[in-house]
């Protein structure tokens, strides 16, 4: 579905990422794992079309979309909800931008509110919500722009451990019911193993994809997976690959 081929990007004459190729197939939840500052966000900016790569190209369903924003959802680390708009206005933004009348946009957005656990918050302002709710609102906004393909940059990293665990569980459920496709960034090994079908490990200076690991998606449905032997084996594998470059 989404494919990046041999992408290289320089910032101020220093190479940030080098010869990166990734692919996300329809229905997959793929994770980009790597330390902070390795160029994961740069890669996302390139995939989303906000930034042009110096070399390489990005394809969506076979079509070259290099440097063209507006083709997929891109949820950044911060929730970036507009402080001066109500929650319903905030999540309806992608629909309104596309020309949907406000009333219709609100109705469509509202139909997802219970599923995204935002009931009763329509008329509230972002600063009145908890961190988890804000993140879910941002996710709903991303979903309403393009549910088929989403780029998620550390969507849960700003949350405390308990909220994070609940959000991950909820996210897996939402993701599988809507049969969405997503590529997400994390530096949390547990999160990567828990959520993804495949993991790309990014390391080095400049950042390169050094490994690709396939996981079986049965994992997610098992409530005890996080404390199972299988999980630990995965973790050992990932950490080993990561640490040895």
């Amino acid at each position, binding site marked *: 579905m989404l494919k990046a081929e041999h992408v290289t990007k320089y910032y101020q004459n220093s190479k940030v990422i080098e010869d990166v190729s990734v692919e996300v197939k329809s229905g997959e939840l793929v994770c980009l794992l790597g330390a902070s500052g390795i160029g994961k966000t740069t890669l996302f*900016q390139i995939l*989303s*079309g*906000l930034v042009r790569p110096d070399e390489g190209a990005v394809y969506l369903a076979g079509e070259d979309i290099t440097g063209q*924003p*507006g083709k*997929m*959802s*891109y949820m*950044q680390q*911060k929730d*970036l909800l*507009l*402080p*001066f*708009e*109500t929650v319903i206005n905030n999540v309806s*933004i*992608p629909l*309104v*931008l*596309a020309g949907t009348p406000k009333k219709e946009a609100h109705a469509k957005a509202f139909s997802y509110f219970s599923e995204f656990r935002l009931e009763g918050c329509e008329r509230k*302002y972002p*600063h009145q919500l908890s961190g988890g709710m804000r993140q879910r609102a941002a996710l709903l906004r991303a979903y309403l*722009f393009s549910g088929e393909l989403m780029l998620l940059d550390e969507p849960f990293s700003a949350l405390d451990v308990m909220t994070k665990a609940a959000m991950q569980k909820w996210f897996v459920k939402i993701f599988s019911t809507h049969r969405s496709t997503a590529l997400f960034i994390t530096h949390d090994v547990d999160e990567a193993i828990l959520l993804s079908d495949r993991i790309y490990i990014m390391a080095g200076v400049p950042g390169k994809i050094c490994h690709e690991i396939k996981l079986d998606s049965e994992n997610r449905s098992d409530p005890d997976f996080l404390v199972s032997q299988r999980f630990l084996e995965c973790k050992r594998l990932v950490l080993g690959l990561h640490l040895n470059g």
Partner: protein
Amino acid sequence: MTKKYQSITNKMYPAAFILLLLLAWSLVCVSKIVPPYLLPSPYAVIEALAGDFPLLAAHAGTTLTEALFGLFLSVVFGVLTACVMDRFEPLYLAVYPVLVLTQTIPAIAIAPLLVLWMGFGMAPKVLLIFITCFFPIAVSTLSGLRSVDQDVVDLFRSMGASPLQILARVKLKASLDSFFAGLKLAAAYSIIGAVISEWLGGAGGLGVYMTRVRKAYAFDKMFAAIILISLVSLLLMKFIEIIHKKSMPWR
């Protein structure tokens, strides 16, 4: 409760200080250190204000009309200029230093020129107010527009928003605080600008009233006009503050 109490006591300090100043002023007058025709007592000023009130109110109305008209024009053109300069970086680089340069020209120096060019009517007055108010509004709005989080702009771009959509849906609302800071400053300037331009001639306005009573050496009326000018400025600024609060219901 304590917060409310705090805000009341905080307001008492300046009130007490003003009372103290008034008392000192009265003492100077009562003791006749300065002759009363040079420095009227606070009581005489209040008397003049009350006695001439209908006339003063009519002149104040003229001044306020000019000020509001000039202010309105500066808001329209100031915001428009800020938006265009924010959108086109070369224009920003070219125009911004010139804008700052124009601020070194004192309004009082160009006022006589404007009168020579445009006569004693409303036009030169409104133009002078426009010239003085345009800068604070344009510059503060521009700084508001430019300080919008680039990540938010990127988010909107990633959702396919055009620059105009980003301006309308994000930047303008995010700049409200800066805009109102500039507008408040401009409001004070607008009244000052109106009075200065009226000094140079015209049929009405507090500046005209001031030049008339000055020629009659009616210092009490002079003071009454000064007090009314600052009162009108304060009211205008308060009014803007109220609109500011009303325009941001999310606070």
